[in-house]
């Protein structure tokens, strides 16, 4: 039984098809990585799963509720069981880190302030930011912001954790730390995670299952070993980091050669 089920999903922007009849099942308790190049439709699929946009056709069921046709109240209830860390972290700049994490707890629960403070401290401690709760997002480094976004996503103890490009723009050490954090969260909280990335190393480190997207279609879905074994040319090209077409600049090369040998007038 899948916790998220995408069926025949079609998404178009101004008549341009971005997702084309996509089918995907996300198994509870697993980390599913959406892998694909730029413009493959990863972020679009994510926005659809989060109910931020409506598809042209198809359905997306989360915990048995079709979010493409459910009521706004149902969607709101469903969203309380999903924690999302955006690519840009999307922390509220007017609030401190503590307040960012506490926001949903204060607004959606009747917990006492002392309990909320304790939960906030715990969530920040999980991501290693317990000592930075008083800081504002603009005072944090890129890696800290990403971890803070994860802490905020975990605030309501969600069943599903969605991470959009968690390691994008981070140095390899911080990116690796974030991968370990995601694995730690899965082990500790038995959380279902959907991670969107195009970082191969990160994907193969954390994934239980990888779904590869290309041009709005799902090329392959499987475990890490299954994906590695696939011989589909696009999958091989992506995994082996082969460019679409080699860069040919014969005119520039010959010009440069003449310039180096002094045959071309220097500017």
């Amino acid at each position, binding site marked *: 039984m899948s916790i998220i089920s995408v069926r025949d999903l079609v998404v178009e922007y101004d008549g341009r098809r971005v997702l084309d009849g996509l089918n995907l099942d996300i198994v509870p308790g697993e980390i599913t990585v959406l892998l694909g190049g730029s413009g493959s439709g990863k972020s679009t699929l994510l*926005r659809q799963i*989060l*109910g*931020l946009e409506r598809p042209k056709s198809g359905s997306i069921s989360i915990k048995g509720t079709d979010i493409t046709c459910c009521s706004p109240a149902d969607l*709101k*209830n469903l*969203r*309380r069981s*999903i924690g*999302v860390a*955006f*690519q*840009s972290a*999307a*922390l*509220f*700049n007017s609030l401190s880190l503590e307040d960012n994490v506490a*926001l*949903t707890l*204060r*607004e*959606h629960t009747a917990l006492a302030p002392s309990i909320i403070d304790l939960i906030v401290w715990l969530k920040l401690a999980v991501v290693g930011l317990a000592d930075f709760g008083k800081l504002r997002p603009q005072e944090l480094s890129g890696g800290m912001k990403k971890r803070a976004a994860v802490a905020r996503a975990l605030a309501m103890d969600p069943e599903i954790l969605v991470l959009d490009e968690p390691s994008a723009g981070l140095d390899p050490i911080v990116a690796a730390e974030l991968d370990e954090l995601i694995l730690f969260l899965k082990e500790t909280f038995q959380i279902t995670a959907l991670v969107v990335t195009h970082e191969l190393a990160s994907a193969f480190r954390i994934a239980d299952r990888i779904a590869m997207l290309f041009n709005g279609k799902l090329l392959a879905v499987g475990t890490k070993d299954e994906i590695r074994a696939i011989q589909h040319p696009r999958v091989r090209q992506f995994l082996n980091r082969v460019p679409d077409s080699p860069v040919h600049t014969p005119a520039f090369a010959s010009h440069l050669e003449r310039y180096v040998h002094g045959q071309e007038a220097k500017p």
Partner: protein
Amino acid sequence: MANLLETAGRETLNQFDYVGSLNIQFWATLRGMRMALPLIGNRHRWHAAAHQILEIGLNALPMVALMAMCSGFILAMQGASELRRFGALHFVIDLVAVGFTRELGPLLTAIAVSGRSGSAFAAEIGTMKVTEEIDALKVMAFEPVEFVLAPKYLAALVAVPCLSIVAALFGILAGGLFMLFSTHLDLLLYFRYVLTSIELRDVVAAMIKSLAFATIIAHVGCLEGLRVRGGPDAVGRSTTSAVVRSTFMVIVADAIFTTIFYFAGKT
């Protein structure tokens, strides 16, 4: 010719789209505003609204007061230079009192608030759009209209009429100072004349105008912010557009209201 018609048609549709969006946003914000009210609403929204009232009202007070003082002096001097020729200098009091209560108080305030707070609304919401904070609010099961727009609108509804009263008072005071220096008319006596020349319907008309201006400024600023697409440059454009559009709409609304009150006053 076909291109011209095409452009005119597209622009007309865009304007209809804009007005339609403003209308939808207005009703949605009205529905969400209950949550921003003190005692019956959500205390976090009310706190946000109170903060915005201080931001729009208190912080703009010195600027609005100074603008009103300068305009009061200008109006009194310009009026006096003409009325003196007819031996009707005392009509300067009526001119300043009625002019500021009915017209210049609300209008000057609206122009100041539009430039100061309307642009700030657009910039704040536009930045929230660009940094995915609006999406973050949605996935955290918050209504952006209730969370962001309603406190701002409520604050504008409270602050703009209050500022209009202050602007009228300072404008009238400037007229009084002019009369004191030019004709040695006692300030107390001046204010007695002012009270006899102002009628209740002038104050009511000013309050109606102020509420309408506050609605225009808040909604145009917020809509411009919500329509931001792209990066930081789009935020800059939305800020400019918020000021230009809201100032234009305030003046058009002022003309409409003045016409209505003029004909209503004649009957």
